[in-house]
């Protein structure tokens, strides 16, 4: 069983990376414009194609790539010459620093909101807020907290004028810079969690055990918290898990808006520059992570809830 699961996982990663390979190679235009600038000289495009081996037939490039990836070599960026893996690992902490607090905040605050506020008006306002793109939320935050109140920076991870000091001061500066982006990413997602919690908990409240508890005279709030929520939790966790990809996707626009040097920015810059190895490497890396987490979550669920193991 685990072997089949593993083979399935590897197959998924291979498929995703191969699709990315095809897409980026078939997209019109090569890396020449990003590398050499947009004024041309005769023969320039051909020279660049030759330089990176892109003048060969696609199947040959693909097999070459596959052979290298099989040995764990993701290649080097056309633009910087840096190894793709080091490029990704360099950026990962920034994206994690943005996404992790947003995930935790929206999970906790969203669940609490959904539990406490059950009115219809609340649901409608959450739904409306959820419809606003994270990008606009970010712009609004910039207007209020940065331009209006002048208390928070609007871009980057560190103060441009600051010396390259280390330690606590640097961490605090980073935290200050992350407040608005994290808020922007959180607000967009916490509305989703709040709505989901509300619906799930309300559904649980109709179940016989909750009705019984209410009939015994337990206060409704207590029924929701002590009885309905734990039962709703299992479904919530798995749904929230499937939502994690949405956080990463949302991080792309937030990273661009707030000029944060994370994985999302790397993906955007590399796609525009047709930096093929980086784009494919990013897809491979993220797919591998998603597939691995799914694998781990599956196994964890099996431990938590024996019924899952039987169903598989």
């Amino acid at each position, binding site marked *: 069983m685990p072997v089949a699961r593993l083979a399935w996982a590897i197959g998924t990663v291979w498929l995703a990376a191969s699709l990315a390979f095809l897409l980026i190679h078939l*997209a*019109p*235009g*090569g*890396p*020449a*414009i*990003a*590398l*050499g*600038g*947009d*004024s*041309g*000289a*005769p023969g*320039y*495009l*051909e020279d660049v194609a030759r*330089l990176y081996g892109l003048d060969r037939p696609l199947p040959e490039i693909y097999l070459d790539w596959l052979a290298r990836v099989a040995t764990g070599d993701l290649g080097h960026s056309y*633009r*910087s*010459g*840096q190894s793709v893996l080091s*490029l990704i690992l*360099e*950026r990962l902490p920034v994206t994690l620093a943005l996404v992790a607090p947003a995930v935790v905040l929206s999970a906790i605050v969203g669940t609490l909101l959904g539990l406490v506020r059950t009115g219809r008006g609340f649901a409608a306002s959450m739904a409306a807020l959820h419809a606003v793109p994270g990008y606009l939320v970010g*712009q609004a935050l*910039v207007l209020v907290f*940065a*331009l209006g109140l*002048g208390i928070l*920076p*609007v*871009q*980057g*991870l560190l*103060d*441009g*004028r600051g010396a*390259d000091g280390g330690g606590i001061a640097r961490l605090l500066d980073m935290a200050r810079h992350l407040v608005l982006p994290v808020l922007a990413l959180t607000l967009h997602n916490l509305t989703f969690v709040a709505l989901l919690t509300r619906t799930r908990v309300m559904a649980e409240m109709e179940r016989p055990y909750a009705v019984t508890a209410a009939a015994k005279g337990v206060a409704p709030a207590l029924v929701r918290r002590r009885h309905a929520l734990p039962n709703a939790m299992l479904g919530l966790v798995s749904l929230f898990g499937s939502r994690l990809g949405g956080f990463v996707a949302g991080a792309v626009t937030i990273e*661009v*808006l*707030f*000029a944060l*040097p994370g994985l999302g*920015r*790397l993906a*955007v*810059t590399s796609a*525009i*520059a*047709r930096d093929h190895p980086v784009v494919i490497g990013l897809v491979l890396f993220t797919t591998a992570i998603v597939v691995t987490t799914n694998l781990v979550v599956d196994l964890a669920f099996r431990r938590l809830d024996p019924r899952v193991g039987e169903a598989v």
Partner: protein
Amino acid sequence: MKIRIFLAVFLAGVVLSTLSARAQVAVVAVAGDPGHLNPAISTAGPLHAVADSIFNGLVALDREGNAQPDLATSWTVSPDGREVRFTLAPGVKWHDGKPFSAEDVKFTFEEVLFRFHARTRAGLAPAVDSVDAPDAGTVVFRLKQPHPALLKQLNVTEAPILPRHLYAGSDPNRNEANARPVGTGAFRFESYKRDDSVVLVRNDNYFKPGLPKLERLVFRVIPEANTQVAALANREVDYLGRVAPSDVARLKDKATLVDTTSGPGGANCVMTLAFNLQRPTLAALPVRQAFAHALNRRQMLELVQFGQGRVAEAPIHSAIEWATLPGALQAYDLDPARANALLDQAGLPRGAGGERATLDLLMFPAFARYAELMRQQLAAVGIALRLKPLDPAAFATSVFTQRDFDLALISYCNGVDPEIGVRRMYHSTAIGNVPFSNAAAYRNADVDRLFDRAGSSTDTAARGEAYREMERIVARDLPYWWLVETDFTSAWRGDFADFAPWSGQFAERAFQKR
């Protein structure tokens, strides 16, 4: 007594802290990540915005586009115009301490610029026979024929000089110095974090006495224009190299200085509509004339450029005064009725829905507002546009490699001499797989001859006459329709002075006011 000591210490502390707070640091916003920092193998804008401050050219260009000393202190042109001799500044050192010499110049031109810098490879290399270094302080350009544009192609943007001792015998595209550049320029490289920042520090041994004045020059990569403006207002950034026309008015209100130039390196850009002359519909002259009568360029200037520029009056940018032909496009006044008549005459009658034809317009997403306006204006005369925004790589392939387009919106930058940026638009040898060359695929033997004559004469009056004759012809043939001369607007916080936004070395003289 104790109080006095305390006061003295306190005052000293205050003075010291204000002094250190006033360290001369300028934070500059750039829209794109430079990728690497070797300006000799690329013409990409974001790269030059950063790297030009690390290097020097043989000459610098002043605001009017005239050559001023940079690495070369003086130069003489031989009577036949085929030999130009440069005397180099003495005592120049690379940032790593090695002495700079004429060998570096010879090497950079022959081995790097003439092979990998697209504009210099296309615009200068064919005219040069050899670059010689008779002694350490002299460089001699021997030319195949007189090349009057030479001096304007030797600034840091067109021809930055690299250290031979780091590049000789290597592939310049993969040299490690591209990521840790060593130049002769006003600022030394300190650090580069991709998609984030580049930090340069003052070159204390700069060969120009008293310069630079800034201690640190920090470039922050901020892709969103809105965020750039917010960062300037929020005092996180001091200098914006390029401000969107729609933001200029709102910046002028703040404590900001705004300067309008024709662009770094004398870009002189003209927003241009290219007709694909290989498409039958557009090969018909009356159709192109109809476009010229139907498009409201004043509206483009006002609604898209917010007045930052001028309606084009000639095929060559008006800043190149000796070559431009004002009034060349006068015949094409805004006249939709005439446009309709021309389209009828061209055999494009209105169909059932009032449409005569549907055409594809390709453009960069950044030019979408122009395209949208053109769609509205052309709809009035029965031409429907399908807008196809493409990123630069896809755009270049579709237009110049596959030639799969009807209309393309292109910002053609003329440079400070028509040899740099105008010739490529019209000369028949510039048709083909070359980005941002002759998009129309226009061929006219007379025009070719005029460019060849203007390009090899040293007599400015004669050159001007040849270019103006060329303009008369292309204004008649209309391979393009010249829309708007677009100005570049830069902005910086009011406590800074002496930025030079027209130059790649924009911060060489800048300082923060005490």
